[in-house]
């Protein structure tokens, strides 16, 4: 079992480092889309998850709800990973 919090921490670190500009404040509850998270950011996060955990989040799971913030994204990833 993997804890959502573990993925959340890793994702947050990745987003801060690689996706958002230095001046954007990102917390687990930050509204991603409103902060400039675009189609390319999505591709990079999906690739990061694939590299880190060895699975691709199925396209049917990539919804507005899952992409709301880092917490919801991590929860989605953890749910899928733990069901495997």
């Amino acid at each position, binding site marked *: 079992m993997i804890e959502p919090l573990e993925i959340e921490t890793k994702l947050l670190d990745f987003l801060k*480092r*690689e*996706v958002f500009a230095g001046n954007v404040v990102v917390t687990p509850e930050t509204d991603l*889309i409103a902060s400039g998270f*675009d*189609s*390319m950011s*999505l*591709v*990079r996060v*999906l*690739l990061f998850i694939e*590299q880190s955990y060895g699975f*691709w989040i*199925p*396209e*049917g799971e*990539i*919804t*507005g709800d899952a*992409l709301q913030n880092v917490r919801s994204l991590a929860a989605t990833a953890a749910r899928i990973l733990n069901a495997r």
Partner: protein
Amino acid sequence: MNLTELIEKTAARWPQKPALVEESTVVTYGELARQVGELVAQIRSLHIDTGSRVGLAFPNGIAYVALTFALWRLNLVVVPVPTECPEEEIEEIAVAMQLAGILTPKPRTNSVVVAPDCYFTKLNPATPPDNHGLNLAFIRFTSGTTSARKGVALSHETVRDRVLSANKAFGITPDDTVIWCLPMAHHFLITIVLYIEAGATIVLARHVTAKPFLEAVNHWKGTVLYAAPFHFSMWARDNSAVQIPSVRLAVSTTCALPQDVANDFFKRYNHPLVQGLGVIELGLVALNTAAPRKKSDSVGQVAGDFQLRIVNPDADGCGELAVLGPGIFDAYVAPWVPREEVLCDGWFFTGDIGRVDEDGFLFLLSRKTAVINLAGRKVFPEEIEAVLNRHPSVSESRVYGKLHPHLGETVEAEVVLNSPDAKLYTIHAFCREHLASYKIPTRFTIVAALPRTPVTGKIRRAASVA
């Protein structure tokens, strides 16, 4: 001729027709032509010499379109600069393309205001560019090392010819509404310019996840979708019951369409995905509107006024694809190589290996072009190699596309290190500093040596690997 004639013609015929929709803003063709005219006046006051090259570093939007046409009206050459580019890459493009200046939505050092949220930074190229008497409209920067060609130049006439040819295949009319989600900095001519020429409405979809995208399609009664396999894959796996009855044409572009995506999309929407072959030097060469399901792995029959030839076919009919037709590029840039020196009796040798079946459908077996397609973004290996090779621990490198079931390709690199103590993470950090994020290789492999061509000793360009 000048490409602004296309927008003027459309605006005169359908002034009230919506041209572009961005969020809640709807701009008619009449209004778009007026905005272009205003920008023309503002940019004219900057006194940029005719024929100068101007970098356009804008995100998707109405402004992107209006600025392109305004620059064209003033006989300035548009050089798209993807917004993801860090400062150093912008600098590289500016020097290689001899930009007279760059337009950005945010102020830069020494920039002047052109319009609200539009700034011009004057640059001083060491030598003014020579367009060799051509009526240039557009240069696609393709990077390249010092010896390679760094850009592909197209004249106004060439862009018009390829737009008109491509539309014989797409058949876009004023009744069409295109739902757009690709970056304009990478896709513009046989798409946005074509839609404008045809008088279609372009809806800029900001959110590409299934729910908001499907909402946009149905709200605006979209008839044409033009996106990468990555997008279609996401929409194919949507588990709502929402259908897209207004869509008549869904084109999957930028890289080979995985068959499972094609099948899942058809199952979900009862609508086929159409593949095509677009080449930077040529425009739209083929489009599979005739048998998108029966021959779903074909890029289709020859499009518009092009002719295809398979050179030196083997026993199975496979050989190099050569193409003849309208809208072939005018010249490579930096160094300047006119198309006459590249073409062979008018034919352009694409480097792709393919075959044509008895019904004239083209099947590509390997795309020899080095460009990597990552979910709709074009990535040029030479550019990444140039950065890697500057790292003190890297003696040489090779960058290639790795086939990815969801994204088309991802970027990977092989590096030859000059010290056993070299650390890969420092190379990764170096890339982060010098490259747009989507160009950073997702995997680095340390190798002892790179494969070379036997005669010239050049590093052998890798085809995409599975």
